[in-house]
């Protein structure tokens, strides 16, 4: 007869190196925190004073506005470019390819300055019938392309070139059999893309797309070259006046950290949404885990008390 082990006590496996690693990291974190808190040169008082100042908040809103507008426009344009690139038409393919090639091979800084100085190259911009004198609309380039327009143009076109590749990669990662099955069922082409392919492509697109958007949040700081008063330009103006360089850079940094953190939470939940069906069972969210932890421990405590 086999031995009955049910009365034996289970001893968990030991992981000594895990403990060593944890200790080393904990020490490092402690050291950094200590220096941040105790070194008076960080001037935390100044940081606190400027963190919610009206001018800083205005700059922050401009940063958010730029990110949102050029992020959304960039991804919409990128989606169209990706579809063009995957289409059967050689013309659409080469237009899309050339677009990505140009905008990925020129520095964003140069593009931005070029847009802002477009008035130097073309004095007027007009909309009409080519090769005739018919004009529906005509304007001085410099009035049309403000700092804001130049910033949005530069960021959007640049973003579109990168997101086109990300979206194309996502679409290519979906099994060809999916399209075939959908076509065999008589599902129309547009519906095949939006209902069958895109939701599956999203799993490959999202991590890189959020990388891009987070990059864009900080990338907007490049528009300081246009003297556009977003977050980074605003703190520069302030520290040039007050000479409190480091605390003010810290103010900007902390805000970027806040935005990135919020975006990361969004990312977690959106990715989770699109992993439906891709993993056998969805893991619990941190909130659900916490709730479960407290629920089980509350039960344990009650039991302990009632004994």
């Amino acid at each position: 007869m086999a031995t009955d082990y049910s009365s034996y006590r289970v001893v968990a496996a030991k992981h000594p190196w895990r403990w060593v690693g944890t200790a080393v990291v904990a020490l490092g974190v402690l050291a950094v925190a200590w220096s941040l808190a105790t070194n008076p040169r960080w001037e935390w008082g100044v940081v606190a004073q400027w963190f919610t100042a009206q001018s800083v908040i205005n700059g922050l809103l401009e940063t958010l506005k730029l990110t949102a507008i050029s992020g959304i426009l960039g991804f919409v344009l990128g989606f169209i470019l990706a579809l063009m690139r995957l289409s059967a038409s050689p013309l659409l393919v080469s237009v899309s390819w050339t677009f990505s090639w140009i905008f990925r091979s020129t520095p964003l800084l140069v593009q931005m300055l070029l847009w802002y100085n477009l008035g130097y190259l073309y004095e007027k911009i007009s909309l009409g019938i080519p090769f005739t004198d018919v004009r529906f609309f005509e304007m001085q380039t410099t009035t049309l392309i403000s700092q804001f327009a130049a910033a949005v143009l530069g960021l959007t076109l640049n973003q579109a070139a990168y997101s086109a590749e990300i979206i194309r990669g996502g679409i290519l990662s979906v099994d060809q059999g999916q399209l075939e099955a959908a076509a065999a069922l008589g599902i129309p082409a547009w519906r095949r893309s939006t209902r069958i392919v895109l939701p599956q492509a999203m799993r490959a697109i999202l991590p890189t797309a959020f990388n891009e958007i987070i990059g864009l949040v900080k990338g907007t700081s490049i528009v300081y070259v246009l003297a556009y008063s977003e977050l980074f330009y605003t703190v520069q103006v302030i520290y040039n006046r007050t000479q409190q360089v480091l605390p003010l850079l810290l103010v900007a940094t902390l805000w970027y950290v806040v935005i990135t953190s919020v975006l990361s939470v969004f990312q977690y939940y959106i990715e989770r949404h699109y992993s439906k069906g891709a993993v056998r069972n969805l893991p619990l969210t941190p909130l659900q885990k916490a709730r479960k932890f407290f629920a089980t421990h509350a039960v344990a405590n009650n039991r302990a008390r009632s004994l």
Partner: protein
Amino acid sequence: MTTAATATRGLVEITKVRKSFGATEVLKGVSLTVEPGGVAVIVGPSGSGKSTLLRTINHLEKVDGGFISIDGKLVGYEVRGERLLELREKEILKQRTEIGMVFQNFNLFPHLTALENVAEAPVVAQGRSKEEARRRGLELLDRVGLKDRAGAYPRQLSGGQQQRVAIARALALDPKTLLFDEPTSALDPELVNEVLDVIRELAKSGTTLIIVTHEMGFARDVADTVAFMDEGQIVEQGSPEQIFTNPQEPRTRSFFSKVLEPAFNI
């Protein structure tokens, strides 16, 4: 053997179909007729063009010569006087709703539940109401024995269950004919029968079935016609008895002597 006599729709006529990929001719003038409600089984060695033939039937693959018709209506073309006009995408999609297809590796949509997989096409391809599609979807899942798994995603189902959902999905469009491309060859042996049983049921229901399979026992059981394909041609066709017990062509004989040996004892 089946109730072919009572079925009135689903006459499939394949006439001298040719298809090449580049320089290699994969189908070299294939002809095959399946009566309404009939069950045709296609067998043959790997690479002989069985899958390609099935894919031409619902126009996933364009033919280079010959033609295919269902109930007298050409697949993929329209007769206009003396000319054949190629149908537009929209009309081809409409034709495909009359021809269901079940794939070797299921090709279920992994991000949709079993019921959503079944109810998607009737709504977007046939314009039925969501409510109706859902109700009918549940009926069909019940028919393949999976009513209680309606809310499960494909990855939460076994291979056999996935293939049964795929069959329900093809049935949801109420097709005249159903094409099966090796429906059990991606399955573990113990799961094969649950899928074959569902197909046996269908064979009795009066839907025309064209099945590519390596399950010879099943083929013998369910087929009205067995066609043996080799190198892009139908070498021999006839009743199961004829083909399995008394093949005429040497190529058929040598194929069966290889595949039937240990597994198939009469």
